[in-house]
């Protein structure tokens, strides 16, 4: 018998990093299964030469291939580093599989397999392992892979008639009707296979919030920002006196289609690449929300979340460096500043979409 000493404090709580990873793993697998089921149940156009089961099988194959390939890359890297101890238990496989599943879930069902494999390679090797593996990367590895695929293989991943694209055309002057029930059920041309099942994602969102894997100060602020900006832009552009239905459908399409909810659940609150204090977390979420809506309303891309989150990751070290302490005064100041910024951006975006900004500027300029 002997006494062993270590530095106090010696008692820790029951939270563990690997438990959080396992919870996220479980959530991702549930979403993956949900995606495959939704694909199998979805309606296909009558002229199409494929059935819904084909689509489901394609989605399943993408998910399996991405996770297996991600694990293989990590194992090869571990072999080259001569440090394979991590892979003796299932714990070591959780993070690679998570990254692979995320990349597969973020790509559309038309993705060729070689694009998927390249996306996984870029995401896992260049996005994660080069920086030193889990806990050290500065950009979200899944998003690095997806961005690479989106930019390099634009033609192969081209999609038509996604709700966000239709919305862009509607702003251009076309008349398009959205069916709310279809949007909720996921029966539309989606931008990524994982983003269709909004109801499932909402349930997973609550589950991850309760288990404290994701932070409401990031995900919640992001969703609120997007809600406010879309409502404002919709109100400025589509409001007919007494008729909110067009505004509401604008908000709905922006909130539940695209990657908004998926990003809020799995991407934006990823702890390694997001800031660490509550003030910077709020700033980070607001920056991403604003940037995403700018791309959606002004840019040529229909979906801006990938760029926005990578931009947020990029400024994370900078905003981490600006804080010195965390107290109530700073929090109030941050919240007020963020609210003001969001409202200004909303008005500016709304007027730009309506092409009335020069006019307003002229009025304001005339006042001086």
């Amino acid at each position, binding site marked *: 018998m002997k006494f062993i*000493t270590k530095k106090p404090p010696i008692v820790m709580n029951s939270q*563990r*990093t*690997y438990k959080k990873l396992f919870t996220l793993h479980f959530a991702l697998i549930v979403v993956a299964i949900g995606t495959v089921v939704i694909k199998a149940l979805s309606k296909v156009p009558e002229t199409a030469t494929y059935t819904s089961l084909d689509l489901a099988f394609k989605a399943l194959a993408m998910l399996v291939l991405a996770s297996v390939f991600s694990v293989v890359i990590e194992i090869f890297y571990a072999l080259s580093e001569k440090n394979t101890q991590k892979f003796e238990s299932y714990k070591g496989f959780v993070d690679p599989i998570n990254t692979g599943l995320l990349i597969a879930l973020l790509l559309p069902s038309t993705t060729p397999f070689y694009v998927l494999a390249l996306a996984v390679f870029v995401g896992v090797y260049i996005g994660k392992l080069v920086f030193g593996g889990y806990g050290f990367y500065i950009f979200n590895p899944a998003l690095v892979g997806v961005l690479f695929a989106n930019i390099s293989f634009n033609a192969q991943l081209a999609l038509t008639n996604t709700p966000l694209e239709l919305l862009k055309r509607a702003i251009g002057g076309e008349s398009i009707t959205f069916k709310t029930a279809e949007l909720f059920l996921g029966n539309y041309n989606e931008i990524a296979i994982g983003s269709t099942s909004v109801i499932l994602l909402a349930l997973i969102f609550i589950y991850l919030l309760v288990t404290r894997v994701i932070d409401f100060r990031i995900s919640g602020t992001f969703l609120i920002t997007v809600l406010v900006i879309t409502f404002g832009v919709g109100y400025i552009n589509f409001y007919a006196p007494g008729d909110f239905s067009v505004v509401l459908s604008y908000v709905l399409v922006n909130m539940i289609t695209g990657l908004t909810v998926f990003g809020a659940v799995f991407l934006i609150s990823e702890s390694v690449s997001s800031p660490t*204090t509550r003030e910077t977390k709020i700033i980070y979420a607001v920056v991403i929300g604003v940037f995403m809506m700018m791309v959606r309303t002004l840019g040529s891309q229909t979906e801006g979340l990938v760029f926005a989150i990578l931009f947020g990751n990029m400024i994370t070290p900078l905003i981490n460096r600006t804080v010195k302490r965390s107290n109530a005064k700073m929090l109030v100041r941050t919240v007020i500043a963020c609210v003001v910024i969001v409202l200004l951006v909303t008005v500016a975006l709304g007027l730009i979409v309506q092409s009335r900004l020069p006019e307003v500027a002229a009025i304001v300029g005339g006042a001086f």
Partner: protein
Amino acid sequence: MITEYRTYLNPKKVYLPLTDTQSKIANVLVEVGDEVLIGQKVAEKYHGRVKSPILSTVSGEVVGFEERMDRYGKLTDHIVIENDQKNNTIPYPTYSEKATSGQVRKVISEMGLTKIAIDGLYTDLRFDAKSKFVVVNSIFVNEPFLSTDYDFVTQNSEAIADGIDLLNTAANGKTAYVIVDKYMPAEAMEELGKAIVDKNIELIIIDAKKLKGQDYKFIKSLVKETLHFDLLENGVIYTRVQAVKMIHDAVRNGTPPTTRQVSLTGDGLPVNAVYNVRIGTLFAELVEDLGSYTEVENMTLHIGSFLSGIELENDDFAITESVDAINVAEYRLVEEDVCIKCGDCNDVCPAGILPQNIMDAEIRNLSSRIVELNTNECVECGLCTYVCPSKINVLEWVRRGKRRVG
């Protein structure tokens, strides 16, 4: 889980350390062979101009001076007194209802009551012109595993209330505050509530299950300024109910502090018990009284609070008046993961500084950044390490940062 109440008041020998963490110089007043009584001053130790006595806790003969490990893990000289089991006590003056501030201060310094609660944020009982707030803690706040001994509060509620009043008198404070738990037994709460009627004492009810440094936050709202590592600098006297009870005994009954309640817990011991023990008893004797250690290969021996106490590599030390809990448990290795930058430590820090960012700066050797992040405001409560999901000892990194920038 405490299962037994025991007493161990007649050890064969007692060992009294001559120095502690602050007082480094001692002046011995007895020689080998002298007969001493309970409460007799055997030495005086000095911390700057503050002189505090060391009182004999048994009556008997001084048999020698021995260098051994004290409860802080440091080698110090101990006075060894052999017990003659006669329990002859030196009479001390007692004070009736109207004890003045000066009288209470004199009793506290003459009986060496300054260092009773030392873990965590607790302060010494030293009074000066700055003293104005008295805060007494009846529970283990920020303490996940030590369960509070509520029977002590129930049985001694009158003495505790009177002791708080005396402490308040000594500090010239307006109102004294007692921190109690929302979920403490109704009986204890009722007794305490009855006892503090007509006294300038306010109950502060907190939820002790949530580890968020509530005592710290309460004191911060009380003094309305940045708190120092030593709360005495802010004029706050913060101690525990056990210390208050000892003050009551010393002032009203003239009883010098010769016994102490110590809770022995952990799976390394056959029985978890609360001991009423003579100060100066060797810990090994208590273990012998309990039986022996359970058959475990590697053990840890932890003294005091789990978040801010210390660990020893040897069980051969004597109980002093500042030991309130001893834990002997099987050694469990917790693997450290990489920091995932979740920010839990930044959220929980009661001082409002950012432990994760300080750790980052310390790893990168950025001294100016460590200064910029107000590292000197850290009070070493240990909550950052407690909440860390990766089990990194964040507090140790912050301590290193503090040491680096002085």
